[in-house]
């Protein structure tokens, strides 16, 4: 078993959650209070994201799989536990906070509520998490159902230098992310130098018109987990085929939660079909694999665990430059989250510096890398950003 050979670690995506609806209410307009915290006798709605919409993917019996046993606390909402489990690790230099359960809020069918929940979550994160430890960074959560408003939210919150990426959540229009309708979001993200984050699980809400895996709705949660990368594949080919990276050449995307062993096979397959039909996409100027290697980063969350660990590196190593693509994210507190030390046992030691540190340093828009100049953004915000 090889150990981690990297002096400092950046966790590109650990999940934090708001503990209850009440936590967000302070950050929402008065009008929503009646809905979320109604007078006695009316039915309350929870903004945890679980109750608000129909349940995310259904485990046996139609229930959502309970994580960490049946703890009454929303996993990821306890800062003390987070500090103990993640921040206390010696090597941890920076952690980017994403959402797992909370991400489901972007699929709330009331799209104005979804938009305002995302706004509230952003303000709540800044005040309640980022303020507590300077190693913590955030992602701008957006609901993509109203792309113009999502773009405005990126410009509003993105000026905070501690917000280093954009969490896209579900595909709010029921369409893969390459669709032109989403482009205002990418325009804003590129303008602020923020990578977009596409996460497994954001497209599983049962309100979503399409299944979370290819071929129809699976009957078991196990299949959903095994086929986790399917939505990554759909969104990524869509981004490439629709020319998003041609139009926004500086945009980068991070895929979270779908493992990585599929990368060689998938690139070869998509390149194959692209070559067969290239004349249909004159705006696609290079092979899909070339766009992928330049613009896409893939997280270690749900990284495959072959019985012979060294075979993972052997398979991945067939793609030149793969060490620049894979990026450590813990996936905390998902039940299969992993420390850097655990991931390190099945990736070649010579990749560690890149996977656990450098790739994240290059991808996220850390403080000092805010572009365009902060003053300009503040001025625009004052002119009607929100």
């Amino acid at each position, binding site marked *: 078993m090889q150990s981690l050979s990297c002096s400092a670690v950046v966790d590109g995506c650990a999940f934090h959650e708001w503990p209850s609806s009440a936590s967000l209410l302070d950050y929402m307009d008065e009008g929503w209070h009646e809905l979320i915290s109604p007078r006695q006798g009316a039915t309350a709605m929870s903004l945890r994201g679980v109750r608000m919409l129909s349940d995310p993917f259904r485990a046996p019996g139609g229930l959502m799989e309970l994580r960490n046993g049946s703890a009454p606390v929303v996993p990821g909402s306890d800062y003390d536990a987070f500090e103990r489990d993640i921040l206390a690790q010696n090597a941890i230099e920076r952690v980017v906070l994403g959402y797992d359960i909370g991400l489901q809020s972007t699929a709330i069918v009331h799209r104005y509520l979804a938009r305002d929940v995302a706004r509230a979550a952003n303000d709540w994160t800044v005040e309640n998490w980022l303020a507590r430890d300077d190693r913590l960074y955030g992602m701008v959560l957006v609901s993509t159902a109203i792309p113009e408003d999502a773009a405005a939210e990126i410009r509003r919150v993105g000026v905070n230098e501690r917000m280093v990426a954009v969490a896209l959540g579900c595909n709010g229009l029921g369409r893969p992310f390459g669709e032109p309708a989403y482009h205002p979001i990418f325009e804003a993200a590129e303008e602020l130098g923020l990578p977009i984050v596409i996460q497994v699980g954001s497209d599983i809400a049962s309100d979503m018109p399409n299944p*979370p895996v290819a071929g129809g709705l699976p009957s078991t949660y196990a299949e959903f987990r095994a086929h986790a990368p399917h939505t990554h594949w759909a969104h990524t080919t869509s981004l490439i085929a629709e020319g998003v990276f041609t139009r926004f050449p500086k945009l980068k995307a991070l895929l979270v939660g779908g493992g990585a062993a599929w990368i060689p096979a998938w690139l070869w397959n998509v390149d194959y079909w692209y070559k067969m039909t290239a004349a*249909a996409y004159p705006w696609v100027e290079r092979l899909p694999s070339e766009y992928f290697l330049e613009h896409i980063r893939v997280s270690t969350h749900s990284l495959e665990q072959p019985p012979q660990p060294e075979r993972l590196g052997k398979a991945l190593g067939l793609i030149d430059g793969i060490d620049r693509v894979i990026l450590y994210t813990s996936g905390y507190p998902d039940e299969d989250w992993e420390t850097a030390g655990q991931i390190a046992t099945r990736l070649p030691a010579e990749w560690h510096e890149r996977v656990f540190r450098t790739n994240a340093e290059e991808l996220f828009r850390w403080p000092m890398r805010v572009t365009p100049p902060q003053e300009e953004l503040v001025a625009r915000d004052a002119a009607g950003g929100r």
Partner: protein
Amino acid sequence: MSSYSGPIVDIDVHNSPATPAEIREYLPAKWNDVKSLIPAVPTTNLLVGYFTPVPHVRRTDGGPPASSYKVIKEDLLDPFNYYKAILTHNIGQYPELLNQYYMVDVCRAANDWMVDRWLSLDERLAAVMVVPTPMIEEAVAEIHRLGDHPQIVGILFASNPLRRPLGDPIYHPIYAAAVQHGLAVTSHIGIEHASTYPAGPPASLMASTGTLHGSAGHHISSFITHGVFEKFPDIKLILKEYGIALLPSLIWRLDAQYQRLRRESPWVKRYPSEYMHDHLSLSTQPLETGERTHDLAEYLSVIDGIEDMLCFSSDYPHTSMDDHMYVARKLPSAWHRKLFYENACRSYGWPLPPIDVEPQLDHAVA
């Protein structure tokens, strides 16, 4: 990696009627008033709505490519030591016809056309039959009607009007009938539909291909979770034109879910990789290739025994076809015997080809 001159079983050859009228001839008279109005050969829903500049460049004999026995014989069967070629329609999406009653008769007509116009001409030809899958009872009846024909070797899903993963219990009566007649269950790309794509309908053919590996993986996993391999221990599942490089990560990811699978589907008795090894074959075309000649073989070989799941296919006459020499160069010579005929003979229940002269297999280390 080398040349290959031994016997060949090609599990995916697409033959076409010269004109739709060829198949209409086999329709019952009750459809005389409408059969000229409804297309007898629906187009693949993989392609519908897309501008797809994919010409068929193979030579023809006047009609569409591969619409005459003579052309297939001269292009494939005679020059290349073909032991068997499995005809797979082009690509047999008749079940998508929206009038189900007409659809049932078109499926029957297409099968009769296949038997009459093709299988009777050459013993080397075999075929998969189209079944009216959305009409379960009719599908079962059609399998019983033709399933004992010696050259009918499988049933074909090239469309999936019910939009359910193929392991779904709705299809089990069809599988029971197929197994009774020793027919392999075949899925060919094209069964994807706008409503079954993850994250929404893709806007281009390229975007649709991004999840083809996923479609194959889900149909395989649904056979496992719905217990099809336990219920029908002799059933064979053949996937065509999804590629083969999808296997390593799929196997690792499915096996990793074994505990959840046991919990959610207690009839799952073995690791997914074990069911796959014993019941599954994938056609080699379209062969994924990396930058270097050996990339694909090295990637595949992270799974022990993966060569037992591969069957050569050309996809003739489509532009995207792979000829057998290309496949022979890309995959280790130690695998050639299995993938060029042994695996297919086992899956389809054929005797091994009589080999008068020991084929010149190159046993050089891959």
